[in-house]
């Protein structure tokens, strides 16, 4: 009788890269259906062309370079689908075909394939076509904002991704299932909410300064501005921002791996998107902002390497130093050693 021997662990999770990709595709399907309903057959054409082009490109590249063909893992298909959602449905079909080709070839395989690319391939393809053929890539309309019903069906959507922000709820389910990490989306979204409010507060204070107001209560009252939704806040609720938060920024290879790093990366994304959105527009701003954040992702990663386990952080050290000086009779904290 022969037995298999191998190194531990002898039981592993069934979750793998394939599952991750296909679950992301499934999470995006409701949105695709809504987009097809909204824009009609051209939207379907763009999705199909983009996905097919991405898969064929990957197959061709891996075939030519005699690598193992990995189109079945769904990564190329997922990239193609995400890219299609960012292309206006009026664009001619060669646009998605070229964009998907560019994404997979330059964005992914030039950098070394799965896990090695530094820029999200979808954004690489999108930014290239956006810059090269900006006429075709400009959306016909921009999202309406301000009404709650726009969350369910956005009539002003120019891109497929914008048709129904609520249908991106699949991404939230993926976070709940721990298929994608919560730190990046959470800190990204929080930044996107806090920054417009802070801006409202600052501009209120600046107004008072210009008027020459000296009453401190007037300045204090500006604090309430933090709680009244600023007009810019509703830009954080459009489809493409949700898409960016849930699917673009959480792309595993282009975000840092350290715990602290992921939070900082989310905040970086939020700040960049806000700056871009505030001075230009939010639809392009999300994609350019995340692209710029990708540039600093590995910088964030190497600077947030955790210290050796059990090492006290700066704050803990300071707290210890203070607490050690206080006589124990005054302390409320739990006594560690008997």
């Amino acid at each position, binding site marked *: 009788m022969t037995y298999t021997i191998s190194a531990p662990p002898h039981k592993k*999770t069934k979750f793998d890269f394939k599952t991750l990709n296909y679950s992301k595709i499934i999470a995006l399907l409701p949105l695709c259906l809504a987009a097809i309903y909204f824009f009609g057959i051209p939207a379907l054409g763009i999705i199909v062309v983009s996905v097919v082009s991405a898969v064929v490109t990957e197959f061709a590249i891996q075939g030519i370079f005699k690598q193992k063909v990995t189109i079945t893992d769904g990564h190329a298909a997922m990239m193609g689908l995400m890219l299609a959602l960012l292309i206006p449905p009026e664009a001619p079909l060669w646009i998605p075909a070229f964009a998907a080709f560019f994404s997979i070839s330059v964005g992914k395989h030039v950098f070394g394939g799965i896990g090695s690319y530094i820029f999200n391939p979808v954004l690489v393809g999108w930014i290239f076509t956006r810059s090269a053929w900006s006429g075709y890539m400009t959306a016909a309309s921009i999202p309406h904002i301000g009404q709650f019903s726009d969350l369910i069906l956005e009539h002003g959507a120019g891109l497929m991704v914008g048709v129904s922000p609520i249908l991106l709820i699949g991404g939230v389910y993926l976070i709940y299932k721990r298929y994608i990490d919560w730190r990046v989306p959470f800190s990204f979204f929080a930044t996107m909410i806090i920054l417009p409010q802070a801006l409202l507060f600052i501009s209120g204070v600046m107004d008072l300064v210009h008027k020459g107001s000296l009453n401190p209560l007037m300045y204090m009252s500006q604090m309430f501005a933090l709680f009244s939704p600023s007009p810019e806040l509703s830009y954080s609720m459009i489809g493409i921002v949700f898409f960016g938060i849930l699917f673009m920024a959480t792309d595993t290879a282009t975000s840092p791996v350290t*715990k602290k790093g992921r939070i900082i990366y989310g905040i970086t994304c939020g700040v960049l998107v806000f700056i871009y959105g505030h001075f230009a527009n939010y639809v392009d701003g999300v994609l350019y902002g995340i692209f710029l954040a990708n540039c600093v992702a590995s910088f964030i990663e190497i600077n947030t390497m955790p210290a050796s386990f059990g090492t006290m952080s700066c704050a803990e050290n300071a707290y210890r130093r203070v607490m050690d000086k206080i006589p124990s009779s005054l302390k409320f904290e739990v006594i*560690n050693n008997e």
Partner: protein
Amino acid sequence: MEIKKLDTLPEKMIIPLRQHRGAVCEPLVKKGDRVLIGQKIGESAEYQSSAVHSSVCGEVIAIEEAPHPDGNKVMSVIIQPEDSNESVEFSACKDVKSDQLAQFIKESGIVEHYGMPTHAVLRPKGKKIDTVLINATSSEWIGGTFKTPGDYASQMIDALKLLMKAAGAKKGAIVLRTDDKESINAFEGIEVDNKKLKVSPLIGSRNVGYYFNEHNSDIVIVSQERIFGKKILNFFTYRVTGRNVNIGCSPTDVGVAVCGIKSAKALYDAVHEGVPFYDTVVSVEGVSNKMEYILVRIGTPFKDVIDSFGYTGAIGKIIANGVRTGVAQYTDQVPVTKGTTRITIQKPEEVIRDEAIECIHCARCVDVCPVELIPSRLAVMADQGRFDECRQIHIENCIECGDCAAVCPSKIPILQLIRYAKDAIEMAYEDLPEKESSNLKVGCGCG
């Protein structure tokens, strides 16, 4: 819960002369001798060793190197058992003095499940123990050896007192698992020195030191979440007592002795009945739908244990000591030793065969790592032989729990790579601490 007892005698018993970390025992018998149950067949003059006793009555047919569940071959006494219950005379010795208790433990062959001889844990050379912990978290409820849960609780308390006496320690604690309701109920409200004890959870900075004060008692019972792993002791000590055990030190360096349920029970039996440590309860997984428990004599080959459940299906993998960090066996003729806690059978179709792909940086390993490492980075560095960089990112902190490799969606053998790097670093640097254990030595005579 029912517990089976293995009654059928195997064809031969393989009793390794080293069932602990430390010196190999010298055999006290020779080929052709007749041995009785409980007869001492091996001992060593070294302090770091533990006596070995025969678990059956029979004839010694060989003393030779035989497979050991840790993957190596070890000098073993092979006994052909005969159907007889003849044993050496056991005499209870309840009034052993504190300073002789350690020697008594060594003579009784009591060994911790992680390999250290119990007396070496309780009375380490040159160190002073002030707290004894019984770790009841990783051992499953071993009902069969006790008649009722109440018995279990009271015997554990007695055993803890004995351990404290042997170590000369003032304080002692039993650590349960929060989801193990059966044990918690057993211990809830138990009386020690006319004081009712409560099972208290370890939360935040409320560690045992806090509860010693709050309950105003030298013995406390606490509960904590389950933790896995092989080099987990330092981490366990930190969680329970709040004492930071540096890398390369053992809990004994900070005055803490960690014992398991099995050794506590063995000590209780040795003191109250005079029986040395020659049988143990192992859990068997995979032979039926549920977890099976069986009381076996030390030295029984795994094959006989598996056969006793009437399992006839094909076997793909036999794993000693759990699927997370256990060792896959190349033969079923390995014996149950004092350190064996679980035997897992996997059918051929259950054996995982994965192909590793590139790391996708999903950071799941970072999220599960209990000691705040970046396992994915360590794996890459180890794979490329960049061991210096592994050291810079604290590879020595790894407790080899295997969580990272278990959750990896790219199926990268992270744990194996980390061990590889650790071994390489160990050979290159002399300032590193002595290794606790190794499953496989390169160039060993196995397989």
